[in-house]
């Protein structure tokens, strides 16, 4: 296994040059640094100190961001201090709201994960360890900005104060599910929340977001679009469509790659992360790129605000790689102990986003362990009460059910004769 990462000066490509002289060809199959039973070790990652990345003006030429696509924008240091030019200077109240939204997201995940294990829903996906991505970005965006998420940005809805009862009703596919039981659990959609429908065909939203952003620009609107994609799905054509069209038409869109290291069982090297960073792909499209400590609420906020300012200046898209770690399983159908060391999350060098923001607030004198424990208890109770209410509207196990006749609605705006006939045949 290679000890070199994409961030080291003499990365794997340097070795490839030497090997090329040996004659026989050799197929390279990337492999992660550790598998089950091996010692988790992220020592190969070069983590620059917080505060070391320069912050160019958001209106800079795209090329000036090139060094930022291989480094890492970090604000929070190991002592919980906010340092360097990317410190967004948020006040205590905003930070506490951010912390609360991240903690609520985590509490919500815990509750819904248990609900799946209890058979109340067929499926669930947690975002544990990645809360700063969705919450930090939602805080930096305007409420009118349109979000094109993946299934792991439930924090966007929570940060927008969307009722968690409504989210639970979708997960339970019950009578209050605004998607009428047609979508798998966690595939939320809410026009009112500016949250676009989640697709299981990964990556499709990335290019759609560019179309939305082009429409907004065409109409002279002031809202931008933001899209998310996992590092694994960047291999899909939609990623390249999105970057190409966004670059060509300078669409006001923020294109976020959430690099959480794992695409189900495949480490990020299988998606191309061994050779270059995902943020570095921006260079080939001539667009701005930033690589950000995704577990650093302040860095995530600052990078997103920077990209938003750039989009509003009609300078087009920014590709942001949010460097983070998927601490939980891919989904309730997944068992990560089959493909990575069981304790790998504990070794992640960028820590936990909730703990880091709490430490920062504490360092500012605006938070304490006592308040943290109190908030945790409050949120657990809030989620519990929401769960009781949502379960009252039905779960997978039982309770009131909508009529199956509704499954023929909304295929088309007006129901054509063949669907009317099929509905009659079903006898509902």
């Amino acid at each position: 296994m290679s000890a070199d990462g994409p961030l080291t000066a003499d990365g794997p490509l340097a070795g490839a040059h030497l090997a090329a002289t040996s004659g026989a060809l050799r197929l390279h199959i990337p492999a992660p640094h550790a598998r089950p039973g091996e010692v988790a070790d992220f020592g190969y990652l070069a983590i620059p100190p917080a505060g070391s990345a320069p912050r160019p003006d958001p209106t800079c030429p795209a090329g000036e961001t090139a060094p930022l696509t291989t480094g890492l924008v970090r604000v929070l240091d190991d002592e919980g201090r906010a340092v360097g030019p990317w410190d967004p200077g948020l006040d205590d109240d905003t930070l506490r709201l951010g912390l609360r939204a991240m903690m609520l997201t985590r509490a919500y995940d815990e509750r819904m994960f248990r609900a799946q294990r209890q058979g109340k829903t067929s499926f669930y996906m947690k975002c544990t360890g990645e809360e700063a991505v969705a919450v930090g970005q939602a805080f930096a965006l305007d409420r009118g900005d349109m979000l094109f998420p993946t299934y792991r940005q439930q924090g966007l809805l929570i940060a927008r104060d969307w009722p968690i009862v409504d989210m639970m009703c979708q997960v339970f596919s019950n009578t209050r599910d605004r998607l009428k039981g047609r979508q798998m659990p966690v595939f939320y959609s809410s026009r009112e929340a500016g949250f676009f429908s989640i697709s299981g065909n990964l990556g499709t939203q990335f290019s759609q977001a560019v179309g939305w952003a082009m429409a907004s620009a065409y109409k002279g609107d002031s809202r931008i679009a933001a899209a998310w994609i996992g590092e694994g799905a960047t291999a899909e054509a939609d990623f390249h469509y999105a970057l190409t069209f966004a670059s060509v038409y300078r669409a006001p869109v923020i294109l976020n790659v959430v690099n959480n290291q794992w695409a189900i069982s495949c480490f990020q090297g299988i998606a191309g992360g061994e050779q270059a960073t995902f943020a570095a792909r921006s260079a080939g499209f001539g667009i701005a790129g930033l690589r950000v400590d995704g577990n650093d609420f302040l860095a995530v906020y600052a990078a997103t605000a920077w990209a938003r300012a750039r989009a509003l200046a009609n300078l087009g898209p920014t590709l942001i790689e949010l460097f983070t770690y998927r601490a939980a399983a891919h989904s309730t159908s997944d068992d990560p102990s089959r493909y990575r060391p069981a304790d790998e999350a504990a070794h992640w060098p960028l820590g936990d986003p909730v703990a880091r923001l709490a430490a920062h607030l504490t360092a500012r004198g605006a938070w304490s362990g006592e308040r943290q424990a109190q908030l945790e208890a409050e949120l657990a109770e809030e989620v519990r009460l929401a769960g009781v209410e949502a379960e009252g509207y039905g779960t997978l196990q039982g309770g009131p059910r909508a009529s199956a006749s509704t499954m023929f609605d909304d295929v088309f705006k007006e129901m054509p004769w063949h669907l009317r006939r099929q509905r009659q045949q079903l006898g509902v």
Partner: protein
Amino acid sequence: MSRMNMVQAINAALDVTMSGDPDVLVFGEDVGYFGGVFRCTDGLQRKFGPRRCFDTPIAEGGIVAIAVGMGAYGLRPVVEIQFADYIYPATDQLISEAARLRYRTGAEFTAPITVRAPYGGGIFGGQTHSQSPEAIFAHVAGLKTVIPSNPYDAKGLLISAIEDDDPVVFLEPKRLYNGPFSGHHDQPIEPWSKRPESEVPDGRYAIPLGKAAIVRPGAAATVLAYGTMVHVALAAAAESGVDAEVIDLRTLIPFDLETIAASVEKTGRCVIAHEATRTCGYGAELSAAVQEACFYSLEAPIERVTGWDTPYPHIFEWDYFPGPARVAAALRRVMEG
């Protein structure tokens, strides 16, 4: 009223809808400055400006994805896929996204987009410029599939497609762009100007989706066709001596079962013609639907005349193409049945 070929009629439909609604945008490969490789968008960029009608990168999946995003915003994009043969990279966006967006969001988001694409053979396009992929889209819940067969219908149907709030795949029989085509490839090309269907009203008019047209009334047998094959069927009716009723489906989904069934119940015989490959082709669905609706009226087995189950072969184009002789033979067979 103006005399138009099909290209001009399509252009007129785009012009009319763009004039009436600033949210109608037209884009695709070569459609902007150049006006499209078949000239369907000629002059639109000059008239409406490059923000209304523009060129795109060569990325069909991207083109449709952009349209879906614009549709979700509230625009009404009309995109051109240069050849229907190139549409496959866009099928994920069409099938998984556009077709299901209304459904999966409880109608909170919709994709009121129109995807135009020239399809079909007859121009020596080989296997990458001749295909008829309509059955793929007709099979998808949530997509409407429309195919005109003449200039008058092309304009009226395209206006309906653009104004429709659901995604529409609008396939244009490219062999008919400049004139009707009976399938007799060795005969001189006839221009549209000699045909009454080339008289196209100025301004807006709509032909409702889901309504077939009886283009030749007849009593002996029913021929179901669309696009180029409508003209082949008309030639076959004339040449076979069979008094066939030729129905132009115009919309494949939702299709006009009422008109079809009324005709087959009257004639008792049915020939289905399409250029696409036979197995699992759209004709299979039509055949099943006719059988279900008209079983007791049928006097003979339903016949299908289609392209062969091969890729569209360049030099054997006329061996592949289901021309009037094959349709006429099928008509005679159903009459013997």
